[in-house]
């Protein structure tokens, strides 16, 4: 039996080898391929995913690594996207601070607010990240790009505490930018600032800009920093002074970057810092000058 089978196989080989094209075995082969081909294809369709899966299982670690790497990339890109506006606002704030310091001829230390006092302590104070190491001392003026923020009341090597101008313990000598009338401005907690003008006949209207009067040697207050605008004038018939309410320019509830004036200007910048709304085109050479050129509206010094 075995011999028969072996012989048959041998015969086939011989026939195939010697037959050339068109031999009977070729035809057998063709038939076989027409039958078996579709079966193989079907089988492949079933098997390939499985083998892919097995390949996948064996390489699952490297895939996981790749997913991790992609996720990390994704997170980083998303973070950049989210923080872009934040960075931009930081740049804008710094720009405004720089503008104020160059217009007023001040030397300022930009500082970041790092801590805020609890409201149940009633005091309105914040801590910033600059201290004696940066030249900050007690009783220096603190301003933001918008206007006066407060003054330094305590200082450590790397931190300083600022009393905000809305705190009822805060007071500052003030001057109306337009008329030059002087007075005293006090924080009132949640209410607008209270301005008391020493001249009972003083003309004061809503919208008038209030700036700091300035202290000797610029401490605690440098002159000419915008504080806010008069929002209400309180009628005090027969009173010895004029009373008005002032809304501060600085955004005290969302303080982020502030500047501490470590060197006062050599001369009063007058109204150089007041927003130049009335002048149509403020040329930088006319208003901005570190040597404090004469103010656009020279107000009589009281």
């Amino acid at each position: 039996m075995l011999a028969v089978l072996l012989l048959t196989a041998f015969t086939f080989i011989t026939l195939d080898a010697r037959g050339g094209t068109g031999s009977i075995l070729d035809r057998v082969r063709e038939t076989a391929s027409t039958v078996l081909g579709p079966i193989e294809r079907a089988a492949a369709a079933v098997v390939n995913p499985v083998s892919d899966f097995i390949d996948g299982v064996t390489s699952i670690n490297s895939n996981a690594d790749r997913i991790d790497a992609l996720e990390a990339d994704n997170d980083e890109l998303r973070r950049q996207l989210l923080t872009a506006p934040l960075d931009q606002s930081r740049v804008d704030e710094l720009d405004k601070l720089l503008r104020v310091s160059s217009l007023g001829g001040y030397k300022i230390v930009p500082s970041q607010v790092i801590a805020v006092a609890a409201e149940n302590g009633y005091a309105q104070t914040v801590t910033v990240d600059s201290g004696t190491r940066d030249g900050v001392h007690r009783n220096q003026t603190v301003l933001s790009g918008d206007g006066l923020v407060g003054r330094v009341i305590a200082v450590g090597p790397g931190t300083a505490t600022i009393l905000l101008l809305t705190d009822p313990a805060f007071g500052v000598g003030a001057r109306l930018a337009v008329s030059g009338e002087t007075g005293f401005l006090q924080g009132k907690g949640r209410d607008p600032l209270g301005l008391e003008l020493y001249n009972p006949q003083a003309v004061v209207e809503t919208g008038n800009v209030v700036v700091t009067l300035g202290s000797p040697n610029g401490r605690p207050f440098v002159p000419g920093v915008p504080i806010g605008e008069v929002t209400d004038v309180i009628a005090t018939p027969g009173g010895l002074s004029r009373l008005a309410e002032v809304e501060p320019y600085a955004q005290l509830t969302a303080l982020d970057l502030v500047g501490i004036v470590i060197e006062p200007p050599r001369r009063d910048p007058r109204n150089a810092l007041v927003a130049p709304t009335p002048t149509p085109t403020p040329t930088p050479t006319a208003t901005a000058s570190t040597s404090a050129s004469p103010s656009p509206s020279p107000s009589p010094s009281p």
Partner: protein
Amino acid sequence: MTFSRVILSVLLILSAAVVQVTVVNRLPLPGAGPDLVLLVVIGLAVVVGPMAGASIGFGAGLLVDLMPPTATEVGRWALVFCLIGYLAGQIQVDAKRSVLIVLGAVAGLAALAALLFAGLGLLFGDPRISGDLVVSTMVSSVLYDLLLAPFVIPGVMALTRRTAINPTLA
């Protein structure tokens, strides 16, 4: 009070005070926000008892008084928290573990702390304190403290209890 409890108290109060000024106070919450240090002091004192509670409260208050940004006299919060710690320690004697009693105590003590602090301010001539401001501050701080208490006090109590069982912990 064991040494490990002292360490634990210092760590908890310090982190509460730092989180308070750098995170909680910067949130734009209407009214006065929650007082984390107060909650931690209550949580510690309820476990350790009145005398230790009073000293913990004093230390915590002193830290709050000294921590920038501060503008009030040193010792005001120390006095307030010392009393709060003592009273919270008394509660431990009455009720062992009732959540409701602790929450009630938080409400009462938060209100007391606000009143006491404002009263001391009036006594020392603080220009910032006015009647309606005190009332609104008290109401809002009681509400916020109650809201946050279930997340802070059980954890603080559990940690403090564990230090008693295993003194090497913490």
